């Protein structure tokens, strides 16, 4: 049965439609893999019974020749997405036992299109982290290990459960979210594909909010084609999210023509950062050569404010988080710690319910928004954000898409960076600019490091031009021919 988990989403879809396999068989194979991979800690809640039920319903539809674009496809769902009747905690203690009475728009669209839910996936608490180590449910272990090493590595974050589950083939694809790189960096660390669409492309309704002007949902998948299929189902206008954009959703899969002749690809010189490992530099050059060979024109571009993106992000995101997380007060949902009066109850509940990184960010956010500091920090950061967006705008007058590395290193060890928040933050140096400017970005596996770990390349597109992004990614994927897989050490 393990052959079933070797199929890509596109292949499984076609075989289901052709009645060569059933969703019950496919989902059953994934449930077995999921249950046998608990050592990874990728799932925080398995919903095997629900999955079996949904698969059965899918099979009934498929039998009749009916069914949606994702009919019978088993998925893992990041625990940031509210799922009706299924515990949703954002992997925070403060949301203990929270069981939504409603479904997030994005997941409701996946079920509308026939997908099957395997369970809820681990993530950094409230998506705050780059290694999935801040989760209340504990760290996720990367399925990949260095050559000849036994050290447990991080799967990236915050969508570390999503990336690990897809890499270990314990989900055919997964939902994820990206505020500063949380889809793309975990994808790079696990040899998977992750796309963060344009801000406004996917509804944020029913997704636990971190930094509302930056948060976007997107998929983590095995291939670019799978990403295109998932993204189509996840996208679309939603009147319940006032920042959702009313634009038609293209058939992203049709964009994968393999033809990028004459495409102008920008190489931002500021991404050549100090101390970047030689192998990352080499991979980037290799990516440039692949695109050139496919007929693209390479253009040197400048994004002069790149180095200020991270510090600006660490003002804007905590500020928005401190405001968003004010709702966790022990009154309406989740944890309550009793106190001598209501303020004492708030303070004790939040002290017990939030982990160290979340507290750090809420306090930073409160500080930069407080009287006397608001202009110096928050307004200043918002102005830098304008300059970063302008950098991209100017670059896109000359080019169609940008090529960069996804992350400044391969996967690091669990516990290696937890004592130094700043060194952890630097992981997002290549991804965070994209969120600040609201642009779409995709990471795809392009090679292995000297240690035998996956490395990713990132493409950044114009707003609402995911089609060019996916088309270019498809060409790179074909050229890279990445087919390495981790050894299945986690199998119980």
């Amino acid at each position, binding site marked *: 049965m393990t052959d079933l988990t070797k199929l890509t989403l596109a292949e499984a879809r076609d075989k289901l439609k052709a009645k060569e396999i059933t969703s019950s068989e496919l989902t059953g194979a994934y449930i077995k893999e999921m249950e046998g991979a608990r050592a990874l800690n990728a799932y925080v809640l398995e919903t095997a019974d629900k999955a079996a039920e949904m698969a059965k319903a899918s099979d009934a539809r498929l039998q009749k020749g009916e069914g949606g674009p994702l009919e019978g496809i088993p998925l893992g769902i990041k625990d940031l997405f509210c799922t009706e009747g299924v515990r949703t905690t954002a992997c925070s203690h403060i949301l203990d036992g929270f069981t939504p009475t409603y479904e997030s728009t994005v997941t409701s669209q996946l079920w509308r299109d026939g997908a099957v839910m395997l369970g809820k996936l681990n993530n950094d608490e409230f998506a705050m982290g780059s290694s999935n180590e801040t989760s209340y449910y504990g760290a996720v272990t990367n399925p990949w290990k260095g050559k000849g090493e036994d050290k447990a590595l991080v799967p990236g974050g915050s969508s570390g459960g999503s990336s690990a589950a897809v890499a270990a083939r314990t989900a055919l694809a997964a939902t994820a979210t990206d505020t500063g790189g949380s889809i793309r960096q975990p994808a790079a660390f696990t040899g998977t594909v992750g796309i963060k669409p344009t*801000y406004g492309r996917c509804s944020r309704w029913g997704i636990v909010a971190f930094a509302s*002007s930056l948060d976007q949902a997107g998929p983590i998948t095995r291939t670019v084609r799978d990403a295109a299929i998932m993204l189509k189902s996840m996208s679309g206008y939603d009147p319940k999210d006032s920042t959702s954009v009313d634009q038609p959703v293209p058939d992203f899969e049709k964009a994968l023509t393999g033809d990028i002749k004459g495409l102008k690809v920008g190489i931002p010189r500021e991404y050549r950062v100090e101390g970047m490992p030689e192998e990352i530099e080499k991979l980037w050059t290799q990516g440039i050569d692949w695109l050139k060979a496919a007929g693209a024109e390479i253009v040197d571009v400048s994004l002069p404010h790149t180095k200020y993106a991270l*510090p600006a992000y660490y003002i804007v995101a905590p500020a928005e988080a401190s405001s968003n997380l004010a709702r966790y007060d022990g009154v*309406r949902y989740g944890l309550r710690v009793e106190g001598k009066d209501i303020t004492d109850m708030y303070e004790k509940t939040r002290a017990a319910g939030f982990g160290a990184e979340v*507290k750090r960010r809420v306090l930073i956010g409160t500080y930069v928004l407080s009287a006397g500091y608001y202009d110096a920090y928050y307004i200043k950061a918002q102005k830098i954000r*304008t300059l970063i*967006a302008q950098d991209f705008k100017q670059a896109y007058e000359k080019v169609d898409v940008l090529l960069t590395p996804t992350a400044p290193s391969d996967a690091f060890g669990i516990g290696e960076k937890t004592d130094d928040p700043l060194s952890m933050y630097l992981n997002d140096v290549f991804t965070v600019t994209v969120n600040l*400017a609201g642009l779409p970005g995709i990471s795809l596996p392009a090679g292995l490091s000297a240690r035998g770990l996956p490395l990713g390349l990132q493409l950044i597109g114009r707003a609402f031009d995911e089609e060019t992004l996916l088309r270019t990614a498809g060409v790179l994927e074909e050229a890279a021919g990445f087919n390495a897989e981790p050894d299945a050490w986690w199998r119980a």
Partner: protein
Amino acid sequence: MSVDQNTVRHIARLARIAVTDEEVAPLAKELSSILDWVEQLGEVNTDNVEPMASVENLALPMREDVVTDGNIQDQVTKNAPGADDGFFAVPKVVE
């Protein structure tokens, strides 16, 4: 710009997060190092630059001012740690 221990206590109070005496000193150090790092933004001339609150230059959508949802009191209070008779229950606020 460094954050001292009194400032940590003040912002923790504003954020409604209880901090113990042992937590204050390390928090002051961590927050200071993050804030010292963001100080580099001061190098950038931002005179005459508009602050960006959202990447979308769209006016917020308008709709008819009508009820589109409701009559789900039981669902609204279902997850509350304290709920009574369809209301959220909290410690006494007014003496």
